[in-house]
């Protein structure tokens, strides 16, 4: 944490790195794509209660969708390391909270889930809450 802070101090006052305008959308797209892969994969696995834990764990590790999701998150981790070196956590984390909206849209479009007004309100409050919490917590680092 202290290291990130030092990087932040170095670039404080500098204009936003243009690279971030590409990296942030990519990181959110990775989040959404990863969760979509997990949802697809989960639907192909047996019921853990019926198949037993060993069969469940084995099919989990063998599922292409799930492992694609894991690979996407591995790529995302590298992207995040780059983002951390370009901007302070207090900016990076709140932007990451947009993934709640992205995943809700993906559930609606790709899996035909019904998302009503109350659910959107809940999603908005959670996004704002996590963004605020993240900003406040990053300031302490």
């Amino acid at each position: 944490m202290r290291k990130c802070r030092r990087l932040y101090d170095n670039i404080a006052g500098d204009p936003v790195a243009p690279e971030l305008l590409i990296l942030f959308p990519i990181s959110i797209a990775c989040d959404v794509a990863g969760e979509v892969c997990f949802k697809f994969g989960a639907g192909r696995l047996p019921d853990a209660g019926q198949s037993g834990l060993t069969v469940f764990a084995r099919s989990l590790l063998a599922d292409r969708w799930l492992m694609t999701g894991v690979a996407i998150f591995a790529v995302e981790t590298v992207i995040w390391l780059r983002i951390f070196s370009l901007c302070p956590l207090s900016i990076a984390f709140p932007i990451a909270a947009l993934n709640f909206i992205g995943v809700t849209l993906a559930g609606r479009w790709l899996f035909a889930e019904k998302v009503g007004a109350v659910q959107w309100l809940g999603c908005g409050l959670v996004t704002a809450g996590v963004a605020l919490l993240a900003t406040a917590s990053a300031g302490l680092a």
Partner: protein
Amino acid sequence: MMRDVPLWLGFLIVGSATQLLFKLASEPLANVEFGPLWLWAALHSPVFALAVGSYLATFALWIVILQRTALSKAFVLTALVYVTVTLGSAVWLGEQVNAAQAAGLVLVMTGIALMGWTDGASDGASGPYEKHKT
């Protein structure tokens, strides 16, 4: 929704424990320069091994949740981990919760209460559960 409460409790407890364990494992490593030596030290820490195991268990629980819950709903509900981790850090790691953090916590909990209040959390169930319904 109600039948999934034990599953969510398990996910939250194991998921929060993972974060706290990683934090505990990172403390002795704070003075080690990030690199091969750091990795070597991390791989020899029992707390780090426990954290990784706990992380894998969280992943398996998440997949079980996705088997029986709509993605749009389940994903937003995972924000509860922010609440438990913040409170857990306050109780067990002695970290302070400031006013802005508290306000964030209230927003997250209000949003989640609204989500839980709406029906049809299992509308998007896929896989074996969907087959049972028909």
